[in-house]
């Protein structure tokens, strides 16, 4: 990673003031993410993985340390359309068609009508939803809805894709399929992806790097470089290399006293 990092955090702190005293959601987080990396954040609830993602997206304000996205503050990066965000729920508007939902950020950002249409078609094709643009969200399965929400995050060509447990609410079969699709999408587009998950196999299967976090205070306990090749069929999950990485992640989680 010789080029400047896309996302750079150093001694990042975020403390929430609550009625029960301060809660250290993030403490001393140092992390650089390079262009084109697929970085997963894993850890138990309260470890700050989602909070860290929200800081990158300028949805939360850090209380200490520095955080830059494309060399800018998160706020500036957002205005420069640096990232697309995918939440756990698809969050599609029921009164808009799938294509209408994908066009929504484009409308807000002031793209021309013709451009909106072309981009919506392109990204729906990218997530294998070509021909579903005219349908309403309730006419699609949960997995398809989540794919539409990924298309929406891709529509305005952000370099970074931030995903907060995007497949957490889906069943395992659909999830496997979407994981495979996401890897293909990543290979085709070369986006930098930050991915929050609860699932060890999902993190190991998808990532080039796995960030293991632990709670109270929320901090990074281990960063694991994946030795797996970029080309990953689903059955790679049965190889010794895969199991080795998964084992290290599990050890990392245990070392963080995550399950006390």
């Amino acid at each position, binding site marked *: 990673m010789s080029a400047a990092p896309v996302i750079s955090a150093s001694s990042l702190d975020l403390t929430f003031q609550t009625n029960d005293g301060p809660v250290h959601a993030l403490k001393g987080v140092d992390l650089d993410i390079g262009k084109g990396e697929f970085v997963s954040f894993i850890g138990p609830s309260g470890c700050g993985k989602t909070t860290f993602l929200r800081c990158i997206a*300028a*949805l939360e304000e850090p209380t200490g340390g520095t955080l830059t996205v494309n060399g800018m503050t998160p706020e500036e990066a957002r205005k420069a359309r640096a990232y697309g965000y995918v939440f756990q729920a698809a969050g599609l508007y029921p*009164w808009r068609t799938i294509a209408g939902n994908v066009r929504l950020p484009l409308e*807000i950002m002031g793209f021309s009508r013709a451009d909106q249409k072309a981009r919506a078609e392109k990204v729906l094709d990218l997530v294998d939803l070509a021909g579903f643009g005219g349908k309403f969200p309730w006419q699609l399965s949960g997995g398809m809805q989540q794919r539409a929400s990924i298309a929406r995050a891709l529509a305005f060509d952000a370099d970074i894709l931030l995903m907060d447990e995007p497949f957490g609410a889906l069943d395992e079969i659909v999830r496997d399929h979407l994981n495979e699709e996401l890897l293909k999408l990543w290979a085709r587009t070369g986006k930098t992806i930050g991915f929050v998950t609860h699932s060890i196999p999902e993190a190991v299967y998808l990532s080039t790097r796995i960030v293991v976090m632990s709670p109270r205070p929320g901090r990074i306990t281990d960063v694991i470089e994946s030795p797996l090749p970029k080309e990953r069929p689903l059955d790679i999950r049965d190889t010794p290399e895969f199991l080795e990485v998964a084992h290290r992640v599990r050890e990392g989680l245990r070392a963080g006293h995550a399950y006390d």
Partner: protein
Amino acid sequence: MRSLGPVLVVVAAIVALWYAACVPMNIHTAVTDAERAGVAVSPDGAAVRRDIGALRLALGNTHVWGDTFAQEKPRLPAPHQVAAELWDTVAMKKVSSKRSLVYHGWITLSATLVGFAIGTVAGVLLAVGIVHSRAMDMSVMPWAIASQTIPILAIAPMIIVVLNSVGVQGLVPKAIISAYLSFFPVVVGMVKGLRSPSPMDLDLMRTWSASRGQTFRKLRLPASVPYLFASLKIGIAASLVGAIVGELPTGAVRGLGARLLTGSYYGQTIQIWSALFATAILAAGLVALISALERATLARMGVGR
């Protein structure tokens, strides 16, 4: 149409109950009339009968039951009497006639619609303000709630008198009382509707750097539509009540409220009941109209299924 059977059974039960109630309600008059006409009744003498319960009197004079359904000024008119009066005053009179219920209905309806329009616009504007400004939320909402705890019958005459003293009469005061009743459900429903988007929906808007105006137009407003329609249904019924209440304290001579009032002055119970039914039918029609509008709008938005 499977539900038609049960519906008809319930309607028949209500009508039967109503007829049954007419007998004891009107029996005293019926017996007195029969006695005057020379028919034997038991017991004799109106003064004696006054202390006898209606049910006992009815059971002792089954031969005069027929008259309890056919009096000119019954305590409780029978269903067919009300229906006949409704038919007579709705269909058989020219709509410009002072005796036509269509004429009186239109007077009340016009005030209702104007009041409903004012109430809806005011309610929506207040809701938008309340959702966007914490100061308005804290300051306006308590007053809106307080306004609805005041009995409308107490405040209606004052509105009429005050407006009359500045030369405003006729439709406008009634419409204002209508609006006073109908803005509240709209405020409550719209505030809930505009706040219905989840934190995640709002976060999404933030990640696109959407302005408050864009968030409002593209998220809050469409999300509030189902809530708005629920409120409008309550609001239009409340508007009609407001318009009628507005007709009562002035001794108005036109409108459904006036029909109720003159009916009670002259003991014309049949007229009162037919005006009541006209009001109920009008209210049902208005609510049905809003429902149809709701279905059409939601279907157009794609959320109606």
